[in-house]
């Protein structure tokens, strides 16, 4: 697989698991659905068969105990990866993630670091409804002590999963099923130090900066392509790690373009898009801004089921395109 010219997101994840289990004996995987292709698409295919059920462990329906147990194993020298097939299920274990894993280093004076990676999958659409569609990354990005990774591209899906597991801090790794088929060219595995990974410019442009993460980055790229054809030059900044955020690349880009559109697949209030706007507006001088910043986020409601409602519930590239045009077209509000 390593020599393929292109890689898709799902295969990127599978490669990362394979690499980690092959090269690091202290890595094991724990969660629901691991002995059957259940919810995780092809991202973990046959890992149990390849690496044995002792290291790829399917579990009872006990999110708290399983997550806590992984944290426990991590403070004993292991590097477990917990898999929650949906972010919605992961929140049952939130106390273990936020009050335990995120705080042990601090509470014990930096003497212990739970090197656990918790994978939560955003899995929505398909009329699954309100309890099976949540994307709550903003919650976790709120919490010091956690690193929160949201890859958009296939290479990041792989390289950031590896970096997450090899990082000594507790990491929340959130992937999105809507990205599983997204492909890109692949130069092979790159070993990264997660604490040094920050946002990067996925596409250069001059007229406006779109900041996004995960599937929203893909939406932004799709919109940017269309806009480019119409002569509007969009810079897309892909966040990659949403906590802690490294601001430099974002600030530089907005300094250059003078316009900021933040796009996020989570809800608006106290969400990631608002964080980007706040962080930028605190630091980029007002006079640089050519338009008021704007955000596009999920509809402010629980996810509906009916497909006719799903269609308008989720952000479409066309909305990004309109927003950009409005921001470019409009003068600075004066």
């Amino acid at each position, binding site marked *: 697989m390593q020599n393929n010219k292109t890689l898709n997101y799902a295969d990127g994840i599978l490669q990362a698991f394979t690499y980690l289990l092959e090269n690091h004996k202290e890595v094991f995987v724990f969660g629901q659905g691991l002995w059957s292709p259940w919810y995780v698409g092809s991202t973990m295919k046959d890992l149990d068969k390849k690496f044995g059920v002792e290291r790829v462990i399917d579990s009872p329906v006990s999110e*708290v105990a399983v997550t806590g147990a992984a944290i426990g194993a991590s403070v004993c020298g292991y590097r477990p990866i917990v898999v929650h097939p949906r972010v919605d299920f992961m929140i049952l274990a939130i106390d273990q993630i936020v009050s335990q894993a995120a705080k042990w280093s601090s509470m014990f004076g930096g003497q212990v670091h739970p090197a656990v990676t918790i994978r939560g999958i955003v899995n929505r659409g*398909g009329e699954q*409804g309100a309890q*099976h569609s949540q994307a709550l990354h903003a919650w976790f990005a709120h919490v010091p002590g956690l690193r929160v990774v949201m890859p958009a591209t296939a290479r990041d899906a792989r390289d950031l999963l590896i970096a997450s597991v090899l990082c000594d801090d507790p990491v929340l790794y959130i992937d999105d099923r809507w990205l599983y088929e997204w492909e890109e060219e692949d130069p092979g595995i790159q070993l990264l130090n997660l604490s040094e990974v920050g946002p990067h410019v996925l596409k250069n442009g001059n007229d406006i900066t779109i900041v996004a993460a995960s599937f929203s980055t893909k939406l932004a790229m799709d919109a940017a392509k269309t806009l480019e054809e119409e002569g509007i030059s969009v810079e897309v900044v892909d966040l990659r790690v949403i906590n802690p955020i490294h601001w430099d690349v974002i600030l530089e880009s907005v300094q250059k373009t003078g316009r900021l559109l933040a796009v996020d697949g989570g809800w608006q209030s106290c969400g990631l898009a608002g964080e980007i706007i706040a962080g930028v507006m605190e630091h980029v001088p007002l006079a640089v801004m050519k338009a008021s910043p704007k955000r596009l986020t999920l509809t*402010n409601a629980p996810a509906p089921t*009916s497909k*006719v409602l799903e269609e308008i519930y989720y952000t479409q590239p066309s909305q990004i395109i309109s927003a950009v045009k409005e921001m470019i077209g409009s003068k600075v509000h004066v």
Partner: protein
Amino acid sequence: MTTHLIESLGNLSDPLCYQEPINIVGENKEILLNELRIMWVIRKAEEKIAEQIISGAIKCPCHLGIGQEAAAVGVSAYLTPNDKVFGAHRSHSHFLALGGTLDSLFAEVLGKVTGCSKGMGGSMHLFDPSIGFHGSVPIVGGSVPIATGAGLAAKLSKKGEVAVSYFGDGAIEEGAVQESLNLASVMKLPVIFVCENNLFSSHLHIELRQPANTTARFAQANLIEHAVIDGNDVVTVRKTAQRAIEHARAGKGPFFIEAVTYRWRGHVGPSEDTDVGVKRGAELSVWRKRDPLSRLALALIQSNMLTEKTHTDIQEEVDSQIKEAWQNALNAPYPELSAILETVYAK
């Protein structure tokens, strides 16, 4: 009182057992025929849904309970619309057994505004308080504390109402369910916990998830009255539920029914999952013989309460009900787009 810990389902988990017609001695014919008919409604409604998933008409995830019809039908017999019933992801049977209409179920599964949740829920979120069904939700174990609270409400209002909480053998692994059992017990709440133990949670057999294959252990640990029964025998379920409901209505606290059963279809969708479930491939064909419908039908025929002809008539009548309801659902409109924002808060 000394209680022996139940550490195994024994014969109840052996699909070779309990295949014979059920015992209907002394039972009322009309009641039995009605139960047979409702079980057919449930079975055929779910088969219709299976067919329409395959056809592509239904998009939403559906968890079919084909093979498990007797539990809901038996449990519902002594409930009234004032009682409060809560389900989970596999709740078509719970809804229909209480009298939920085919029209509103099919419409809901299709995301139509005439659905029982106005098209906002789909298969996993059913709701009809007029029949006493107060909601099903797919977060495993999620509705069990809520049903426990309905029991608390019933206790406070002192009208003899009971709450019913349906869940599965997987759900018992959730802390939410464990906490609820203690709460209901210590507060003596009128809650009937109905664990449909179909031996599986998704692809995993209970023996891979728990140290024993019976869940009534937890009723015991929480000092909750309980019964472990053949969940595919509608008469046994009904009689047990009667006992449970009387117990709860009388203010004696909760009751736990472990109804042992098996689902014929996969965890979600129409397939049989025989390639997926650990242990499942070998067992399914044997379990099909512990069919709640044919075991009742055969018993009725052997006791001359039913002829093959009448049985066929019943099924045909149900078929045409289903056909009509499906057509109604197809013809119904989708919700207004404004429903998304309008249902978030009360007006």
